[in-house]
């Protein structure tokens, strides 16, 4: 509950944020703080400079451009849940956001923080992978956009490198796709034991499984439950084991929930 010494900066612009993040190898961006601050309490991981992004309005907001959603990295879960644009363009985002922890966490936690911290149990990494999201990163050398599959690199590690900043997340237009979600959690709306996002488009299911590896595992198959289960089984998952679930049980849940996510998408 008692953090180590740190420097705190609160930039007003994206450019200043990038400069601050580049100034120290151990500078970290602070978005909602719902993950980073708890890790800092254990003093296991200790950033030396905390760059608070909450005063940069340019990073907030939700826009729709020909059916696709452009969501600012600092948009909170609550804003996503209440957003008419999300409800119209891709309602699964709000449905999943509504199951994240509780009201207080949803009022502060952000989509950018969720994908950048990339805790294997987070909700948005598998959802972004299933929906084929594109993530825009701003660095000293300019801006680039990365697809979800290359964005997630390791536990707490993504394509956002030191000195860089995630600015927005683009969710492709829904078109006639149908999206689904299924998860087994530790208590209602608790930490994920296994979670699965699915997006079905003209007979093919794109399924992303969370909690079973450092990054979401994406599997595609025809959109019927047995095909999806076989695809997951042949992916040879090697999930970590912990006090809540063995590797074997997580592998089994991945198959069951993949089928249910596809059914939820129907």
């Amino acid at each position: 509950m008692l953090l180590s010494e740190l420097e705190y900066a609160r930039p007003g612009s994206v450019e200043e944020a990038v400069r601050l993040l580049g100034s120290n190898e151990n500078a970290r961006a602070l978005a909602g703080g719902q993950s980073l601050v708890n890790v800092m309490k254990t003093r296991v991981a200790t950033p030396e400079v905390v760059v608070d992004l909450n005063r940069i309005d340019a990073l907030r907001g939700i826009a729709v451009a020909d059916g696709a959603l452009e969501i600012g990295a600092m948009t909170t879960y609550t804003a996503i849940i209440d957003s008419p644009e999300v409800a119209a363009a891709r309602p699964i985002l709000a449905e999943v956001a509504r199951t994240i922890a509780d009201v207080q966490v949803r009022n502060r936690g952000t989509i950018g923080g969720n994908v950048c911290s990339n805790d294997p149990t987070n909700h948005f990494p598998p959802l972004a992978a299933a929906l084929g999201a594109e993530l825009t990163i701003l660095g000293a050398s300019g801006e680039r956009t990365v697809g979800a599959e290359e964005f997630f690199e390791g536990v707490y590690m993504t394509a956002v490198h030191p000195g860089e900043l995630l600015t927005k997340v683009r969710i492709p237009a829904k078109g006639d796709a149908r999206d689904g979600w299924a998860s087994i959690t530790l208590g209602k709306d608790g930490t994920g034991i296994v979670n699965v996002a699915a997006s079905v488009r003209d007979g093919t299911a794109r399924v992303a499984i969370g909690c079973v590896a450092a990054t979401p595992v994406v599997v595609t198959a025809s959109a019927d439950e047995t095909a999806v289960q076989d695809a997951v089984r042949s992916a040879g998952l090697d999930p970590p084991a912990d006090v809540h679930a063995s590797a074997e049980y997580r592998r089994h849940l991945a198959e069951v929930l993949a089928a249910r996510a596809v059914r939820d998408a129907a």
Partner: protein
Amino acid sequence: MKVEGTKDFDAPAQLVWDVLNDPSKMANLLPGVESFEIQDDRRWKASVKVPLGMGGLKLNFNFEKIEERPIEYAKLSSKGQGVGAIVAMETQFHLTPEGERTHMRWEADVRIAGPVGSMGQRVFQPIVNQQVGNVLNALEAQVEEAKGGGATGAEQGIHPGSPEAYSADPAGPTHSAES
């Protein structure tokens, strides 16, 4: 926690063995090494800031080579003392020369005590795999450097079961992540 894997080097066994036995080279394998001190040919220390996504984990390592059969087998014990964690690791390297190339099988038994151990093991296992991946890539870079040759592309003995399958090749130190 047991982690294991194989690695092939486009270099003769003697050269790989020399790297494994040169503490100054071994020190550079560690991610985020800040300083190291060689006590003797069997023992050396290093202070390290392991780059984790959320910030650095400061650890002071003591290394000791406890067993060796030249060019064929080495066993290294290391104890890392940090704020949130105490790491005890025993690593074994088995080298088999294949002409101009070398096949290495390695295994490590990693034990973490202290608050980090209770951070949820589901996160701890992939992180160890990642760091091991970094060490192996750094080892390969050292071997290449020792070989003087610039060619990379040494065929990597990655099979689905081995941990490298998890970690992509993170270019350079870790990344800013925030939440």
